[in-house]
Structure formats: structure tokens, C-alpha cells
């Protein structure tokens, strides 16, 4: 993969690579992520032609076998000219999960980053509008974290009831 050589020349030591089936992955080092992530993605976009952010999603690796870092954000990039794909995984940890925002590179990242913030509580620094997108604004939890129960804490039934006579 020529783009991996470009990356290795510029950001040696900041990432490792792995492949599984047809997915090529670039795994960022958690320590260096805040400084390196944005330049690396910029290099991928501008020098290697990965101009299409196909997907941006979060993962919570709590209790995952052999996992060392808790939160992960996956950037799935596609080269629209050649159809190549690469997945960049950036890690971050409690108590303040934070990552740099990529809205300046891909405008489509706006809502996807808001969704990750809503579901996992990972804040994106430099995002223009960091608020909840799917859950109500007064909701306090982050539902897709592994320590949040499937059925919630009873928020779903916390509403008044309208009877026949009142309506």
C-alpha cells in the first residue's frame, strides 16, 4: 500500500498498522493521538487522495479482550478515485475523553462527531457545535457506553400520564 509508506515516512512511531480481510487499519498510539491525528488525517486526505469520509463511529472497549484503551473513534476513509479504503482508529481514555475534531477537513464529520459525543461522551475539540443530537438535551447518560444498561435507568417512563377526564 503506497499510502502507508507515505504515512510511515512522515509519522513514524505514532501508529501501527494491521489488516483483517480487506480492511486496512491504522491504529494510533493513544499518547500521541492529540498531536498527530489531525496532521495524519490531513496527509491522508491531501496527499494520498482519501477525500471521502465514509464513516465515523465510536467504540467502547470496556472489558474487551486485550484492550488497553477504552474509547475509540474509527475514521473510515475512502479514495473516490481508486475505491481504496483505510480505517484510522484513534483512542482516548477516561476521565476526559477528548479528540481533535475533523470538521475542518470533512464537513460531513459534524453530525457524526456529535453522535459520538452523545453516545459515548467523547468530546471533540474545535467542533463548532458540540451538543447532543439524538438524546434529549436534559439526558445525562451516554447510552452506548458498556456500563449503561440496555433498558436504561427508568428514564423512559419518567413522564406524566394523561387520563381520559383530563383530556
Amino acid at each position, binding site marked *: 500500500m503506497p499510502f502507508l509508506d507515505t504515512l510511515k515516512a512522515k509519522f513514524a512511531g505514532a501508529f501501527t498498522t494491521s489488516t483483517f480481510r480487506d480492511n486496512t487499519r491504522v491504529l494510533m498510539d493513544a499518547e500521541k493521538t492529540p498531536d498527530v491525528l489531525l496532521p495524519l488525517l490531513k496527509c491522508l486526505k491531501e496527499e494520498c487522495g482519501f477525500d471521502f469520509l465514509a*464513516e465515523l463511529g465510536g467504540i467502547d472497549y470496556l472489558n474487551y479482550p486485550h484492550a488497553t484503551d477504552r474509547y475509540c473513534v474509527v475514521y473510515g476513509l475512502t479514495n473516490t478515485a481508486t475505491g481504496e479504503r483505510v480505517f484510522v482508529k484513534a483512542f482516548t481514555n477516561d476521565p476526559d475523553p477528548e479528540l481533535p475534531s475533523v470538521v475542518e477537513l470533512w*464537513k460531513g464529520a459534524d453530525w457524526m462527531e456529535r453522535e459520538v459525543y452523545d453516545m459515548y461522551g467523547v468530546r471533540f475539540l474545535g467542533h463548532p457545535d458540540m451538543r447532543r443530537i439524538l438524546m*434529549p*438535551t436534559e439526558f445525562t447518560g451516554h447510552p452506548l457506553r458498556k456500563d449503561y444498561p440496555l433498558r436504561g435507568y427508568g428514564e423512559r417512563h419518567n413522564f406524566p400520564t394523561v387520563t381520559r377526564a383530563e383530556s
Partner: protein
Amino acid sequence: MPLETTHPVAEDIAGANQEFLYTLNFGPQHPATHTTLRLILTLDGETVVKAVPDIGYLHSGFEKLGEDLDFNQYVTIVDRMNYISPVANEIAWHHVVEKLLNIEITPRCKYIRTILAELARISDHLLCIGAAALDLGGLTAFLYAFNAREKVYNIMESASGQRFHPSYTRVGGLMADISDDVVNQVRDFVKTFPKVHGDICRLLNRNRIFIDRTKGIGVLSKEDAISYSCSGPVARASGVVRDLRKDEPYLAYKDLSASFKVVCGKGGDCYNRYLVRMGEMQESVKIIAAAVENLPAGAVNVELNDKLTIPDKTATYRSIEGLIQHFELFMWNRRWETPVEELYGANETANGELGFYVVADGSGKAFRARTRPPSFIHFAVFPIMMEGHQLSDVPAILGSLNIIAAELDR
């Protein structure tokens, strides 16, 4: 729960504080949205100065359920994601799971899945166009479209037993093989659909009202389409030549790639998106016609001794291997053995690239089942498209984007 505007208009818009601007709440229960989404529009007279979407009115925790249910059970949930072309979602989900488990499905299964995926694409586009026409004042196109959709429903019902949410695919195959009756129905559909298509074309293509309300409305440039991660008909109408069926051929599209073309537009406006959808339906019919005539014989499920597919009832009741495998797959502590790995896979569904990012931790369930929802990504473009247009263009643009709330919010 606040029902008033929760997000005040930003200060940086020119004249945002001036009193001639006013705020209009659009939705979440509004006939023109067809689904549950809410827009907060800032208006200057009838011109929309700013549109702020507020979503989440149908957020029901699909992805959390994906971590709780196993690969076969989650099909029922995936079905309800893009509920106007459910079977395409199932095929996309099991495409990724089979990639993860390294299963090569049988040729017959590939062809049947291709036929169903294309039927789903047709029914999705029909509803999208019918509903868009309904919002712009043409009820007839809606009735024509629904009549043709009923035929697709009939095929789904004959194949799977459920007309709306078939839940038809399984890991490594299908719930059941299709009968000759289904094949005949598909052939019949291929014969009759061009007439319906022509009827809708004649109703809308050169309709003065329809053209005036869609041409030049909601223009999305090619650069913006790529930058905003658009895919499917929305991107193709803007000139992005990208179709996963050609670029990353899956199922039987490799064999059938001679039979269809990728439909693209240049203008990027609502009328172009409509034309791309109409063109795609024509191409889909060609794919179905080619696939149903070349339908291979043989089994639809992979071999029993792979310990991956649910055995059919005869094998379960009559043979010890079948019985053991049935229990292996249905007991909550057995199920599949997955690699401790993760993987992204995507299919070209009617709305665009529907991808799943599955993280497996060795058990039969997904550790994380992230969806890449095309509707969600397309709706993020809506404020850009809407700027400077009239209030009456809101339904035109919404209709052309084909936002499905369940896929939007999951």
C-alpha cells in the same frame, strides 16, 4: 421537555437580531416530513435564512440492541432501520457478518439476494418519488407508486411469509429457498413494471408544476457532496460517479455488471435526484431480469458441517448432526465462534452506502454493531441546501433526500 425553540438563532447571521426575522417550528409531527424530524426555520418573509434540524425523535437504541442480540436475531431489528426497503438492510448486515466469519455463500443464494435487493431498491425509490410528488401536489403518482409497491410486497410475502419486514436472510444463507411461484411473480413484475415506470415518467418528467418546484432547488455541488460524505442517488445526482455495486462488487453484481449502468446526473438539484432515482429503477429491472433468468440451481445455505447455518427442520428432526447444530446455534452460551477482530463492510442500498462496523469479541454476539446510516449523513446537508430558498421548498428538498427517520435516528 421543552417544546419551544431550544437552539436560538446564532448571532453571526446577518440581521439575526432584527425583528423582521421570525422563527418557525416545523415538525416533529408534520405531514410533509412523513417521518419524525423537526426543523427550526428562521424566516425572512418566506425566505429561509437558516434551517436548524433537530433529530432524535425516533432514537430507539438499535445499536445497543445489536450488542444484545446475536447475528441472526439482529436481523429483525435491522429490518426496521430503513423500513421502506427492509430486505436490503438484512442483506447488508449479513454481508458484513459473513465477511467477518469468512463464509462464501452459495451462488443461488447470491442471486436470490441480488433480486431481493434490487426489488427493495425499486420499492424504496417508488415510495420516495411518490411521496415527493404527493408533497408537491400530485396525488396520482403516489397512488401509481403504491400499486407497484404492493406487487413487491406480494413477492416478499410469497418468499418469506411477511409482506413488510421479511427477516429473510440468515448467516450463511436464507430462511428458505424461493419457490417457482416467486420466480414467476418476479418475471411478471419485470414485465409489468416498465409500464408503471412509464406512467410515472409521463406524469412527472415534463410536468410544468413539478419541474418548476424542483429544478434549481436544493443544489448540491460535487465538492460539497464529497465533503459531506454523501453517497447513493444524492451523490450521483451531483456528479459523483460512485456505486458500490460496480466499485466493490458483492453478491452477484460481478456476474451481472454487464447488464446495468450507473445512473448519474450533473445538476445536483431536486429534479436531478428525481431523474437519477427514475433511471436507477430502470437499471434495477434489468438486473432483476438478468438475475432471474440466470438463477443457478442448488442449495441456498452453505454446507451443514460448517456449523454456521441453521439446519432445516428435516435435518433437525431426522439427524443427530442437524439436532446438535440446531442447539449449538440457539443456546445462548454457544452460538458462533468469531475471531476477536473487527470489520467494516458496506452495501449500496437505495439511499446510499449502508455500512456496518462490527466488532466481535469471540462470542456469538457483536461487541459493537455500528451502522453507517445514509439518511443521517444526507440530512446533515439539508441546512446547506435549504439556505436562501422559500418555505415551500422544504418539502421538495426533504422529499428528494428521502430521509427515513428510523435510519436517521436508529
